[in-house]
Structure formats: C-alpha cells, structure tokens
C-alpha cells in the first residue's frame, strides 16, 4: 500500500465520490405518504364518484381540459379549442401523449370515452354533449344540444380512457387495473391499507417531482393526527377541528386551510301549502323569508359551532365563479337583527310565528347536527318553532328528493366545481317540471319566470362574457328574492410536516403532481 501511486489514490477517491453520488441519488428518490379519510371505492372514473376516488382518478388519468388548483381552466389533453359555430366545438388534441401501457392517445379514445360514459352510471358527465366525432387522429368535434359557453369546464371532469385497453379489460377489472395518461401509475392497492402510485416517466407535461406516492386510509380523525405526529404519514386530509391547535403548537408541522366550494344552504318551501306547516305556508311571502335570513347569525354559528373554521357565504356561488354578482353580499343585505326580523314577520301577519320542521343530516357536513340545533334556537327568537328531523345521509337524499313531499325547510350543501353558477341555478331554482334537466333539485319548488328566462338565455349564448352578465343578473334577483339562505363555506383543513409543499385545491382533489418534498 505504501507504494500506491498518487494516480491510483486519486482514482480510488474518485470511485468513492462516485459511490457517494449514487447513494445521494438513491436518497433523492422522493416519496410522500398521504393520510386520507377513506379508501377509494373505484379507480375506474365511470364507476362512480366520491372524494377519495376522484383524487386517484386525477393521478391516473387526464381530462381534455385541466382544472387548476384555483379553479382556472387550461389545456390538458386538448392543446386548444375553438367554436366552429354556436353549438360546435373543435378540440385540437395533444400529440405524442402515451398511456401507461405505451398506447398512443388519439381522437378515437376521446370518442370512445364519451360513448362509454353515456352507457355508464355517470351519463351526467356527457349530458351537454349531443354528438362527438373524430375529424382526424388529433382533432375531435363536439356538438352541444344548445349553445353552451362552459363546455370546456364540464370536460375537466371527463377523464380519457384507453379505448383498446378498456374494451379488453372490462368495467369490473378496470376498477383494479386502471390505465390512463396521468402523471402516476398504480403500483399496488391493498384495500383499506394503502394505495401506492409510481411516477409515470413518460408523462406529457414532464415527469413528476415525487417518485412514489402512498395513500393510506385513516378514517378516525384522532388516529390521522397521531399518524402525522409519529411521522407515519407526511400529509393528512381533514385535520379534526379540535386538533388544529395541537398540531399548530407542535414543532415541525404546519396547518394548511382554505375555504372549500361547499356552500351549506337552507332551502325554503315556496308552495302555498307546505308538508310540515299547518295552514297556509308563510314562506310564500318574501318578508318571512327575509325575516328568517335576518334571524340566522352565521358569525355566531362560525364561532361557536365551527370553531372559526368556516367562511360565512356572501352569495350562492364563490367569487371565482362565473355568475358571481360583483360587490353584492347577502350578509350586508340582510344583517342579523331580531327586531327588524320581528317587524317583517308582523308585517307579513305572522307576529306569533309558526311551526315547521328542518330536515338535516348528521354525517354529511362538518357539525351538521349542531348547526341544525343552533338554527332552532335562533329562529325561536322570531317565534318560529323549528322542529328538527335529523337523519344519516343514506336516508336523507331519498327523503328530501324532489317532489319533496315531506319537507318544508332543508339544510344541504352545494358545490359547483365546474366554476359556473349556471348549472346550480338551473338545477336548484329553475321552475320544476318545465324543461328536461332543469329544476330537478328545486326542493323549495321556487318558481320565478324572470329567473327561468335568465337561465334560458345564459344557456343559449355561446359567449362566456354574456353568460356571466346574465348569471350575475340571476344572482342579484335571487339575492333579493331569497328562495334559499346561504350559510357558510366549510373550510378544508390539511396538516403537513415541514418540508412538504402542498397547494390545497379548491375542489379538494389532492394532487401529488403539484406537490414537492424536501428532507
């Protein structure tokens, strides 16, 4: 060893250095473990939708139009699109995109997906598509039944399948062996234990920064917090409200919040006779509806029931949406005031109040049953005796379903991830049974020809600006007429360990492609 030349020494030192770098590279293999509230039910986008499944879909598949974290819409598998005429759209598809199995993505896949969706349990995904045809390998032409300015927004929810693979595999197996163009591929899924995704190095928008993403379903909120604190997971979804302070105090962790899209709303029956009210229905009178609105103190609900983790809603849709009426606020229009509310009740001839029933859930929204109780005590102040009819969600949706033969006053939530008030107004406020696909969730039987006309016009214009103007008109009209009271947006609460970058998405779909980790 003594005679070892300087060159040899340098070489071996170099060798060590090379080894060190390889070890470094192996260490730099980034991975993240995310604690979700539930295991996904599906990995096949046409099999159903619920949050955990949605999160997986967007890792495995891509839509034509991509919805950003802030609800902006941009090119996805479609590079660009244009209106050929009022009802015809032409989408130019991205070239060179491959599915995880190496198959090329072509127009045929898009046509296949639309037709497949129509036969599936999710025909709503393509409800606004009348027909679709491939113009060439990388162009599709879509026609809508009527001019529909927000078709691209709708398409953000349609995830493109590989036509050959899906046909071969069959629906049942697609749930276990998904195949998309998305940034991640399925590595392993042990039900209720973990779902592991690996980065797809051929992803068209560039390889993901994080190589391995593991999702673990941890239903119990306290266990989820514990798993974060012990370092078993790096990120958790839905941090329990009572654990927020605890995690904030802890060194090395961060709480990330953002208002969600889910607007908790109270629908009031506007029929002459209402199922749970004896005699005539007082809520036919706008003054009574206004009195109810003024009696409900959303700030108090936020503070006492929600621990400050809600955002009282100022309209029916959030500010980012098409149709949000600039500068209007339900809270400013109808500030809390029992005196004023009582006056309005008296003017309407109901100084002595009346009795009705509120239908609400106890396992769907954050603290929903407690909100219902708070409402009862608030409305008692204007002599409305509010009986509570609280049930689990498995009974609720069938119970309150239009034609709402059992309900007068319903608490539920509504969100429009498509970023457009039109679909909500069409479904919730359009006169019932007048037009197919409209008013199907109009639980208060609200009917206003002016509103119907505005929604009709909005759904008939191919111009987004015009649609926005018309829907803003509709928002103003609704805020004045109060067929429904907006209460608050729930807040999405995440907790992450230091070194994990998480951009919370408005639609709650955690997306590892946008995330990064450092040690």
């Amino acid at each position, binding site marked *: 060893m003594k005679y070892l030349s300087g060159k040899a020494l340098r070489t071996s030192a170099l060798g060590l250095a090379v080894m060190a770098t390889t070890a470094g590279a192996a260490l730099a293999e980034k991975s993240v473990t995310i604690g979700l509230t539930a295991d996904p*039910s599906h990995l096949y986008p046409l099999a159903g939708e619920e949050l955990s499944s949605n999160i997986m879909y967007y890792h495995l598949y891509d839509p034509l139009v991509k919805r950003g974290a802030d609800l902006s819409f941009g090119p996805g598998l479609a590079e660009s699109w244009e209106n050929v005429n009022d009802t015809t759209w032409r989408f130019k598809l991205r070239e060179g995109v491959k599915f995880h199995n190496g198959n090329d993505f072509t127009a045929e896949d898009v046509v296949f997906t639309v037709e497949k969706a129509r036969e599936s*349990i999710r025909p709503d995904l393509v*409800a606004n598509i009348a027909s679709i045809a491939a113009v060439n390998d990388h162009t599709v032409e879509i026609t809508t039944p009527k001019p529909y300015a927000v078709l691209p927004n709708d398409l953000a929810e349609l995830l493109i399948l590989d036509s050959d693979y899906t046909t071969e595999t069959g629906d049942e197996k697609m749930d276990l062996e998904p195949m998309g163009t998305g940034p991640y591929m399925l590595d392993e899924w042990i039900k*209720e*234990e973990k779902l592991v995704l690996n980065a797809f190095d051929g992803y068209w928008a560039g390889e993901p920064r994080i190589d391995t993403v593991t999702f673990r379903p941890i239903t119990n909120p306290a*266990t989820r917090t514990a798993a974060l604190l012990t370092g078993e997971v790096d990120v958790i979804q839905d941090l329990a409200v009572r654990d927020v302070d605890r995690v904030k105090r802890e060194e090395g962790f961060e709480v990330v919040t953002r208002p969600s899209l889910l607007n908790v709303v109270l629908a009031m029956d506007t029929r002459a006779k209402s199922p749970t009210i004896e005699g005539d229905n007082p809520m036919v009178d706008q003054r009574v509806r206004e009195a109810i609105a003024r009696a409900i103190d959303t700030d108090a609900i936020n503070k006492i029931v929600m621990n400050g983790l809600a955002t009282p809603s100022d309209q029916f849709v959030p500010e980012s949406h098409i149709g949000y009426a600039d500068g209007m606020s339900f809270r400013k229009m109808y500030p809390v005031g029992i005196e004023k509310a009582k006056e309005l009740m008296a003017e309407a001839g109901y100084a002595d109040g009346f009795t009705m029933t509120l239908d609400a859930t106890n*396992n769907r929204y954050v603290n929903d049953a407690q909100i219902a109780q708070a409402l009862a005590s608030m409305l008692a102040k204007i002599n409305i005796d509010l009986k509570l009819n609280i049930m*689990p969600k498995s009974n609720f949706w069938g119970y309150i379903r239009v034609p709402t033969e059992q309900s007068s006053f319903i608490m539920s939530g509504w969100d429009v991830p498509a970023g457009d008030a039109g*679909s909500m107004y069409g479904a919730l406020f359009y006169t019932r049974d007048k037009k197919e696909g409209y008013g*199907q969730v109009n639980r208060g039987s609200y009917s206003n020809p002016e509103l119907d006309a505005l929604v009709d016009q909005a759904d008939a214009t191919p111009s987004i600006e015009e649609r926005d103007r018309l829907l803003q008109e509709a928002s103003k009209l609704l805020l004045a007429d109060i067929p429904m009271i907006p209460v608050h947006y729930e807040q999405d609460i995440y907790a992450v360990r230091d070194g994990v970058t998480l951009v919370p998405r408005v639609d709650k779909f955690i997306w590892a492609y946008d995330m990064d980790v450092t040690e």
Partner: protein
Amino acid sequence: MFGYLLKRMIQMSLVLWVVSVIVFLMMSFTGDPVFMVVPIDATDAEIAQARRILGLDQSVLVQYWRFISSLVQGDFGNSYVFRQPALKLILERLPATVEMVLVAMALALVVAIPLGVYAGANPNSRISRIIMAGSLLGISLPGFWVGMVLIFLFAVHWGIFPSSGRGDTVEIFGLRISLLTADGWRHIILPALTLSLATMAILLRMTRAGMMEVGRQDFMKFARAKGATRRDVLYKHGLKNALIPVITIFGLQLGDLIAFATITETIFSWPGMGKLLIDSIYRADRPVIVVYLMLVALIFVVINFLVDIVYTLIDPRIALK
C-alpha cells in the same frame, strides 16, 4: 356423530336463510342505495339508468328472488358501491381481522386463565383483589377510549409502536399474513391488546367464579388428600371442571370479535372486514351487508360446533347428539 352433523347443517341453512330475509327486509327501510351512487343533481333519467345498472329497478321481492337464485349457483351478488363481488370484498379483508382476533384471544387466554385460577384459589389475598379490580376496569373501559390512550402513549408519546395500519405482509397461498414479519408484529400489538381487554376481563372473572365453585367440591379435597400437589389439584382437577362455561364464553367472544371488531379496526385503521360492514351500512350497500351477516352467522355456527366438540374432550360425560 353423522346425525349430529346433519342436524347442525340443517339448522345452519335455516339460520342463514332467516338472516338473508331479515337483512333484505331491514334494508328496505335504510334509504335508497341509488342516491348514494348518483350525483345529487342527477336527473330522473340518470337515476333510472343507475337503478337499471344496479338491478334496483325491480321490486324487493324480485330482487330477493334474484339474490337467492344466484346464491344457489354460488354467486353472492355485486356491491352497489364497489361494483365488485361482495364475497370477494369481504374475503380479501377477512385474514387481517382473523389475525388480529387470534392474537387478541391468545393474549386474553394467556393472561386470564392463570390470573383467574389464582384469584379463584386465593379469593382473599391482596393480589386477588388487585386482579379483580383490574378486571372490572377491563370490562368497563370502552374500547375506543383504550385504543386512543394506547395510541397516544405508545405511538405519539414514546414512539414504541406505530399508530395505525398493518405493516409488512407476506403472501402465502394468496393470503396476506402480517404475523410472519417483525413489522407486522409491531403493528398488531396495540390493536390486539385493545381488542383483548374486555374478553380478558370476562374470561378472568368466569375462570375465578368457576374455580371458587369447584374448590368447594369434595373431589378437590380428596385429590389433595391422596397426595396430589396443590398445582396439580388446581390445574388438572379444578380448572378442567371449571372450564366448560369459560369455553362457552370464549367461543361466543371469538365469533363476536371476528364479526364486530369494527371499532378497533376503525381506530387503528386496520384493514379488516369490520370497517367494511360499517361503511356498507352508511352507504346502504345491501349486497355486502347481506353476505357479511350470513358469513358471520356461519362463523358463529362453526365456532359453536367446535366448542361442542371441545366440551366432549374436556368432559367425557358429554356426548354429541
């Protein structure tokens, strides 16, 4: 023996049939599963399509007839939510539950029998009093609370065990087993302990009561008089005679824990089948609930059968009829 088996089989089929009828009837009151599947703003046409796909467009009677007739052919139906065969969903989660329950029951036995024998033989000693007080705690503390405390102490505070999950598994004949890996054992200790506490306490108290009862019998005195050691008297003569009720309870508890370990599974996010039952109830997923409860009934019948056989081994006077 053959006649006995046949009788048991007939009983079992009857039990399974009754379970299926009851669940079908019950589920017609728990909400319409179709609304758990479609988006809330679905139009009537969309809902009708979903109903058709799920086979919910027929009357309950027709649905039941379809269920029974495909059951006879070995097809237990598909989950509404997962759109996968219900039996498969349950069976792929069964090993995790069985594993946890077996460890829990073993733990319960190992602790409960010696302590119970001791407390029964020395009812007035200070240690016996401590044991009995501890068993009262074991019975009265709710499992979800014990689980949370164990997680807080052993996982968050001391960092000895992981808080949740099942850890590494080894696949043998298509079954995932975690008991063959060190990591698996680290994960199973806390949930198994949580699950075993109540059973441990019950078995302990049963053993003690049995031992006290037996201790007054003449043959115990004779055994001692003929020169058997105290240990032999207690375990060979005493325990054997005190064991019949303990075994009965053991069998019932075993079935109960396999079927309804739901709470422990949820707290430790243990990937077992109990959580599937709760989720399915929330989602009104009738096919899974029916098959689950039928499987549970089957497990109980089998366990009771085994318990009967164990009776005959312990007490030759008992015969299977």
